């Protein structure tokens, strides 16, 4: 908890990128985005270095448009990575921090008001606002990730025999009163993938797509999906590719 407070800056805003002066809605995500902008610039770790040289796929330090083109293959790790995996990679390689420490507690628990990953995800995704979702599918690994993601989507398992497909393969259905996106279609995948990260009113924090992968798995009675893992990334590739160029709308506000 103390570490959380230490890393979240209070007070004056060194906002970089989109400043919502014409901000027109009640979305508290704006605070998370401001935090994220500050954290990007804050020197941290044994190396006392900021994340400014982090390569999110479009070159070192290029944040604008990067989220809309993730997940993608990275030469330096030989893996297809999503935003969160890439952030952890940069925290470790640039800042000298410990991966296990960061991934032990990446998302806010009940009563907590924001983590580093949540804030950074919000700000970085906002720098892709209105841009088409276009994760590259050029490299073999990227194509393989899509294929794997599709298989995972239809994978039935657990005590309740759920697959992602159980809730997300049809249009115009809902669970209780919550509308469900059909993730096999461009409309459904686009609306769903493009709307994360999102401020969840019931939780009081911004939730990322990585968190969503974890929480769906939890509700499917499966074990804990790890941040930036092969399965989490593959599922995100599946949705992002299905989105077929739909625009990013994040950060949005959801119940």
């Amino acid at each position, binding site marked *: 908890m103390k570490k959380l407070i230490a890393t979240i800056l209070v007070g004056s805003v060194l906002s970089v990128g989109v400043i919502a002066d014409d901000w027109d809605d009640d979305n508290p995500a704006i605070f998370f985005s401001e935090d994220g902008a500050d954290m990007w610039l804050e020197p941290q770790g044994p190396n006392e270095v900021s994340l400014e040289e982090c390569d999110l796929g479009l070159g070192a330090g290029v944040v604008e448009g990067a989220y809309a083109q993730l997940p993608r293959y990275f030469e330096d790790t030989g893996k297809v990575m999503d935003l969160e995996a890439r952030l952890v990679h940069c925290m470790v390689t640039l800042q000298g921090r410990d991966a296990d420490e960061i991934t032990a507690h990446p998302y806010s628990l009940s009563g907590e008001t924001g983590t580093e990953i949540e804030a950074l995800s919000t700000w970085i995704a906002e720098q892709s606002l209105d841009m088409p979702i276009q994760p590259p599918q050029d490299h073999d690994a990227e194509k393989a990730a899509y294929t794997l993601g599709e298989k995972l989507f239809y994978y039935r398992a657990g005590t309740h025999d759920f697959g992602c497909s159980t809730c997300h393969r049809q249009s115009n259905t809902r669970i209780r009163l919550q509308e469900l996106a059909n993730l096999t279609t461009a409309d459904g995948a686009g609306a769903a993938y493009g709307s994360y990260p999102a401020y969840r009113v019931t939780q009081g924090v911004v939730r990322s797509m990585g968190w969503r992968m974890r929480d769906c798995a939890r509700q499917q*009675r*499966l074990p804990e*999906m790890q941040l930036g893992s092969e399965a989490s990334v593959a599922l995100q590739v599946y949705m992002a590719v299905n989105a077929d160029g739909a625009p990013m709308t994040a950060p949005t506000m959801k119940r």
Partner: protein
Amino acid sequence: MHKLLLSMVVLCLASLNVFADDSAYNALMNSMKAINGVGLDRIEQDEMQAACSNPQSMIADPEESERLRQSAMAAVKKPSDGVYLGDWKRGKEIAANGKGLQYSDDQNDPNGGNCYACHQLDPDEVAYGTLGPSLTNYGMRGQSQAVLDYTWSKLWNATAWVPCSHMPRFGHNGVLTEQQLKDIMALLLDPESPVNKH
């Protein structure tokens, strides 16, 4: 001749289900951690789950599909004392309870059926899902043995009726106890149940 036969067999098997390889299983095993009573064994698939993990939500080979369906039906465990109906008031709570078997749940609490996630039941409850058909007035069917057997086996293992059904196998998988299933039966079939008083 043997080589030809062998390759034909392999081709046949491969065409049955393009999705039937280990890649998803392996990826999940590498991507998940056991936590609070939910272990990696949850990732292992049984026959039905493996056969149904495809976009069509179907078992392509009709004979195989029928075999699995019959095997599901044969494994249905009827109530130990021959009494099918419990208490609809308890059934109402079970239907509304969405917890149980998630790693965020208290392992000491009873599991819920979470019926409202997918179904309409008591029409006064507006927060119902539409993944499954409405069960309002289910009790109109009466309580013949055929109705009792159908409803019980559907709750126990929905794939005994619809191959690859997405309805959880509440009895077969041990999600609900025999008593809980009886209480759900009552919620559905008792004329006094709010499901039927409309």
